[in-house]
C-alpha cells in the first residue's frame, strides 16, 4: 500500500497536470497535481498514480557516501579515532 517508486519524468503535460515517467522499461502516466514544479529529467517518487515528491540526487549521493563511510574497515576507523 505504501510502496512508492522513484521514476524519471520523460514528458510533461502541464495543462492536464500529468507526466509520463519511466520506471525501468515501463512508461506510465501519473498526476503531478501535488508538485510545485517539476522538469523533464527529474526523478520523482510515484505512489498510487501521483508524484509525491521530487528526489534529490545530491542528497542520495550524500546518503550513499555516509553508508560507505560507516562500513569502512574498523582498523582504519580505530586508527583515525586514536588521532588526537
Amino acid at each position, binding site marked *: 500500500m*505504501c510502496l512508492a517508486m522513484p521514476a524519471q519524468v520523460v514528458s510533461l503535460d502541464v495543462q492536464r497536470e500529468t507526466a509520463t515517467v519511466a520506471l525501468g522499461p515501463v512508461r506510465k502516466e501519473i498526476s503531478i497535481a501535488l508538485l510545485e514544479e517539476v522538469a523533464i529529467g527529474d526523478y520523482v517518487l510515484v505512489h498510487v498514480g*501521483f508524484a509525491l515528491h521530487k528526489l534529490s540526487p545530491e542528497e542520495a549521493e550524500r546518503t550513499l557516501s555516509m553508508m560507505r563511510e560507516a562500513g569502512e574497515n574498523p582498523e582504519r576507523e580505530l586508527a583515525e579515532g586514536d588521532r588526537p
Partner: protein
Amino acid sequence: MKYIDEFRARDLAHGLAAAIAREAAPSRAYHIMEFCGGHTHAIFRYGVHDLMPSNVRFVHGPGCPVCVLPIGRIDNALELAETHGAIVCSYGDMMRVPASKRRSLLKARAEGADVRMIYSTLDALKIARENPSRQVVLFAIGFETTTPPTAVALKQAAAERLENFSVFCNHVLTPAAIQHILDSPEVREIGSVPIDGFLGPSHVSSVIGSRPYEFFAEEFQRPVVIAGFEPVDVMQATLMVIRQLNEGRYEVENEYARVVTRDGNTKAQALVADVFELRPSFEWRGLGHVPYSALRIKDAYANLDAERRFGVETKPSRDAKSCECPSILRGAKKPTDCKLFGTVCTPENPIGSCMVSSEGACAAYWTYGRFRQESGAGKGAREAAE
C-alpha cells in the same frame, strides 16, 4: 533501477552490519520500533533481521493502513455496495481484508456487488463520469501518502460538479498513532513493550516532513530516524538510532534526505487542509479509539461525503476470535504468538488483516520464513501444504 539498486547493494549492507555489530554495546539491548509496514516488509524480505546482533531488536508497529482499519468500516463499505447499490472503488490491498462474518469486498463482488479495484483516485472519477446513472463511492483509506490524492479527486469532482461521486473517508494520521503508542500503559508504565527508538516513516514523511516528529523525540525522549524503505536505508537508520542511544541523544534525524525535508510537501498539505478536518476520535484496530487521529470531509464538501449522503453508521465489531492482530499492531505480540498463525491462517486463507497486506507483520513472517526458526506449528503446516 536508479535510486533502488544502489540502496540494495550487498557490500553496503555488509559494511553497515559490521558497523552495527561494532557499535551496539553488548551490555544493553536496543528495541527499535519500525512504525511502517513498509519497513517491516523490507526487514523480512532482505533478512535485515538476521544481520543484526542479538541485542538489536525490531518491534513491529501499526503502520499498515490496511491492517489498522476496524472491521466496522469494511462492513460499511460492503453496505454501500450491497444495500445502496453503489459502485465501490477500492485499492487492491483492501479487497481481501476480512470483514464481519469472514466476508470481504472480493467475496461481495463474487456475489454480484459492484466493487472495482482502482490504482489511482482519478480512476474512480473516470468510473463516475462513465456511469452517470450510478452512485460511485471512493473507499478512501491510508495514511498521509494517500490523503493528498483523495483531496485532488474531491476538488476535481467539485469542479466538475460530478453529482454521482462521493468519498467514504477513512484517512488516518501517523503522528497521532505514534503518540498513542508512546502514551500506552504497555510502553509507559508496565514496560512490557520496550521501545528505545523509532525508525520514522519514509513516504508519509515525504508529505508531512520531519518536523511533526520533533515533539515526540523531545517529549518522550526517544530518538526518531526517518528511514527509506530499501534495506540499506533501514540499516543506516538503525545505526543512527544506536549512535543516538549510545550518546544519550534523542533527536529527529533524517536518513531519507533524498526525498524527505523538514517541511515536507507544502502544496499537498495545503490541499489536504482545504478539504479535510480532524475527527475528534477514530477507532483503530489494535489501538482502539484514538483522539484526533483521523480526518473527515469538511462541510464545504459535505455533498461529496459518502457518510452523509448514505447515512453511514459504524457499528462496533469484534475481530475474529483468537486473532492476535490487535496485540501485534501494538507491538505487544509477535505473529508466532498467535495460535492460528500458519495453520488456520495463511495468506491464501487470511483470518486477520495482518495476514492480508504484504505490509502486515503476519504476512511478512509467513512469506519470508521467519517462522521456520520460531514456530514448529507454522513449519508443520507449511510442509503439509507443500
